[in-house]
């Protein structure tokens, strides 16, 4: 039976758990908006993972883990463009640039970082193809899934809590009305500063997320920390239509009628 669906109904953690328990071999492909992730498994263990949006060649991975410099990366890219990762890895080891352990550790760190990012995906179509093996030109490794699944489960709980705190991204943010607050003294992270730049009742949280290229989880995390610190408050977007009865009052006569109505309700409840 085809293993396919949407992450809204079956999370990445649940998928990993299933693949781990069934000791599956194959490739899990997840697609969302403009990004595609491919995660390869061998007998229920993580073998490889890549995101379409970033360079996942061996030189790029080694440079990210600071095993080679930017200059070395550029030289390798230009001179060894036609080599597979396996060939290139052997060449670098034989030339004494790096060790086998360096390559395996860097790959492991990278694959885990890809999976951690996948845990933040809460929407996207997935399908698992048991006939698709890990790419031939890459260096496959074997990583047990159990610890990653535990980490993913924690993230799901965090996601649920953040959804309770910030139920809708259609709300806006405004700076809290605290005369004693001094923004300069705040020790904000880079992500928080990026969001702070866009705080204005005209911008919904969703629009801020788009402008800062954050996904739902990332923007909720930042907004939650700003809310907790008392820096911002949730507010209605300025252009949202209003539906309450009071907001429909347009003339003094209507207002008088509504005031009379509320007074009648008050008198009735007093004697209830």
């Amino acid at each position, binding site marked *: 039976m085809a293993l396919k669906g949407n992450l809204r109904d079956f999370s990445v953690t649940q998928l990993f758990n299933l693949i781990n328990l069934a000791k599956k071999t194959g490739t899990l492909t997840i697609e969302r908006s403009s990004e595609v992730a491919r995660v390869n498994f061998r007998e229920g263990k993580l073998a490889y993972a890549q995101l379409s949006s970033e360079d996942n060649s061996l030189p790029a991975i080694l440079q990210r883990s600071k095993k080679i410099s930017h200059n070395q990366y550029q030289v390798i890219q230009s001179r060894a463009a036609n080599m597979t990762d396996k060939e290139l890895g052997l060449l670098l080891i034989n030339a004494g640039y790096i060790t086998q352990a360096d390559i395996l550790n860097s790959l492991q760190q990278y694959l885990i970082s890809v999976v951690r990012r996948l845990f933040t995906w809460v929407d996207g179509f997935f399908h698992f193809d048991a006939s698709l093996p890990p790419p031939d030109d890459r260096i496959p490794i074997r990583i047990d899934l159990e610890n990653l699944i535990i980490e993913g489960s924690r993230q799901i709980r965090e996601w649920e*809590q953040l*959804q*309770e*705190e*910030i*139920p*809708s991204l*259609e*709300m806006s943010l405004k700076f809290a009305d605290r005369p004693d607050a001094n923004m300069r003294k705040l020790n904000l992270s880079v992500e928080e500063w990026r969001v702070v730049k866009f705080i204005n009742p005209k911008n919904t949280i969703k629009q801020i997320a788009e402008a800062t290229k954050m996904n739902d989880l990332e923007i909720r995390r930042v907004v939650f920390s700003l*809310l907790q610190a*008392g820096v911002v*408050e*949730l507010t*209605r977007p300025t252009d*949202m239509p*209003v*539906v*309450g*009865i*009071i*907001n429909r*009052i347009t003339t*003094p006569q209507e*207002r008088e009628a*509504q*005031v009379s*109505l*509320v*007074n*009648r*309700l*008050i008198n*009735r*409840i*007093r004697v*209830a």
Partner: protein
Amino acid sequence: MQNVKIVVTGPFNAGKTEFIRSISEIEVVSTERKISTGEEMRLKETTTVAMDFGRISVDDDLVLYLFGTPGQKRFDFMWEILSEGMLGFIVLIDSTRPETYREARGILQTFKIYAPTPYVLAANKQDCEDAWSVEDIRLALRLDPKIKLLPCVATNKESVKNVLLELLYEILGEMEKSSE
């Protein structure tokens, strides 16, 4: 005949059905069903799956309806429908279950989005030994001092009356502000 609506909302088991039952002049039209999940079953046997519905006739021309929303998150699609055209809303909080405070905050934010009408919060079950004090709940919910958070015992009619009256005073205040 004019009908007006006040919505009573809050997390699961906060006491919404009881609140409406205490003040309604008719037997509350309740759509309660046996609870199916284990966690919820430990707290009570039945829950509201669509809405509770109570009525207070003011005179021949005016009737106040009280609508209670289902508490669980999976019924949140109902909230938008219920909040349409309401006079105001009450968020009921179970003072004895701090694990539901975050959800109560989320419900408050959701209703504020659906309908920018006046509201008050009521800290229910204040007669229980393990109830948090109103002041502590205010801090836990990070409520602005201007927002009314009232002590409440939903089984006590006078207490329910007090919460409804405070909401109506809030509505009057908003009307005065909107005319300025």
